[in-house]
């Protein structure tokens, strides 16, 4: 692993990231943006030293500190695990009593989305012409989100709350689970299966589910497809676009291949056909816990 600490204009760093992505033709790049004002900032070297353990399993990584009050961390490989580690470390560096604003720590994994975001950042800075990402970048691997439009939006206040919850997620002692199911009986059954071991929020509608997720950034979300005010696929897509690390399981009585394909294209993490057994739900939770352990595992030192 190679970590470069580069102290220069942020736009140069971002442009070099575009070049890196084009050069490696890899889709496994991650970009995290941290606002300096929310953390105890004692200089670039100290920050790099603190964040370094999060980057140990990456192929290469760079930290750019810009004059714009942002720190940009880019890395290749181990996207999820690295992001979790960055969040966990940044979570310990927050200033006391700080209220996080949107985009305090944001991660981008999809090269296309990342390219668009970088373009926006650069346009904002009005310092450079933007070069587009090469078409080959990330072609082989699926993006985190399929990028399709969805009607679910979040206000700045909701985004603040979401980012706050997101930072707390790796540190929680108890899993937060969201159940979105419009049938009272099925909602109640799922609640009974999960209750006792986890903190569960059970709601009946898509919008209610969305608002709940923005509040708590749940560890796992079980989503039914057919909902009164929308559908679980749309909700899954919205959540994955906002939070690529979200763990979403579709729970449905629709057993068609088409539904499975849509779920796949939204990069959901599980698909359970009703009637489900208690064991199937327990297995899902276990798979999530195993995955989380991998993302957050402390790297072994030689």
């Amino acid at each position, binding site marked *: 692993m190679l970590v470069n600490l580069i102290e220069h204009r942020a736009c140069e760093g971002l442009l070099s990231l575009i070049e890196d992505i084009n050069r490696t033709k890899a889709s496994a790049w991650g970009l995290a943006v941290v606002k300096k004002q929310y953390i105890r900032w004692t200089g670039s070297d100290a920050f790099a030293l603190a964040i370094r353990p999060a980057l140990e399993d990456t192929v290469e990584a760079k930290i750019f500190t810009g004059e714009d009050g942002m720190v940009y961390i880019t890395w290749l490989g181990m996207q999820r695990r690295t992001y979790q580690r960055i969040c966990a470390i940044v979570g310990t560096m927050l200033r006391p009593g700080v209220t996080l604003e949107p985009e305090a720590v944001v991660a981008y994994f999809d090269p296309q989305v990342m390219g668009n975001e970088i373009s926006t950042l650069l346009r904002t800075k009005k310092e450079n012409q933007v070069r587009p990402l090469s078409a080959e970048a990330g072609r082989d691997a699926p993006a985190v989100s399929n990028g399709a439009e969805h009607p679910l939006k979040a206000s700045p206040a909701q985004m603040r709350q979401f980012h706050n919850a997101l930072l707390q997620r790796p540190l929680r002692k108890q899993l937060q689970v969201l159940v979105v199911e419009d*049938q009272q009986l099925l909602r109640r059954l799922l609640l009974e299966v999960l209750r006792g071991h986890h903190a569960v929020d059970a709601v009946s509608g898509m919008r209610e589910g969305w608002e709940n997720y923005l509040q708590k950034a749940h560890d796992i979300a079980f989503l039914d497809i057919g909902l009164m005010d929308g559908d679980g696929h749309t909700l899954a897509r919205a959540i994955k676009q906002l939070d690529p690390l979200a763990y979403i399981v579709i729970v449905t*009585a629709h057993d068609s291949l088409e539904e499975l394909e849509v779920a796949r294209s939204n990069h959901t993490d599980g698909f359970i056909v009703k*009637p489900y057994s208690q064991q199937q739900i327990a297995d899902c939770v276990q798979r999530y816990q195993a995955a989380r352990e991998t993302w957050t595992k402390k790297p072994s030192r030689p």
Partner: protein
Amino acid sequence: MTAQLDFTELRKITGGDEMMESELFQVFLDSAQECLSILRETYGQGAENTWRGQAHAFKGISLAVGAVELGTLCKKAQENHLAPPEEKKKMLAAIEKELAEVEHLVKKEMH
């Protein structure tokens, strides 16, 4: 036809808690009646999507309480949502009959 009920999975969830089971059965019966009344209202109106949606919901709750045969009839109704009203009427009659039997068995369990 004798209704088939398999409470195995439900009992794993309730852990044999009779009060909880009664509550869940009551929720099932209420929801089933709701679904049934919408199916009754829509079978002759050409409201195919509503019919399909309700049959789908009905299937989900039936299978959840272990009413396998009822779930199968609802699945058939869901898949044949474009069928003419006369056929839907027959499907509806079969569902009503099966639900009556299931209700009888469920109420026996509740007492």
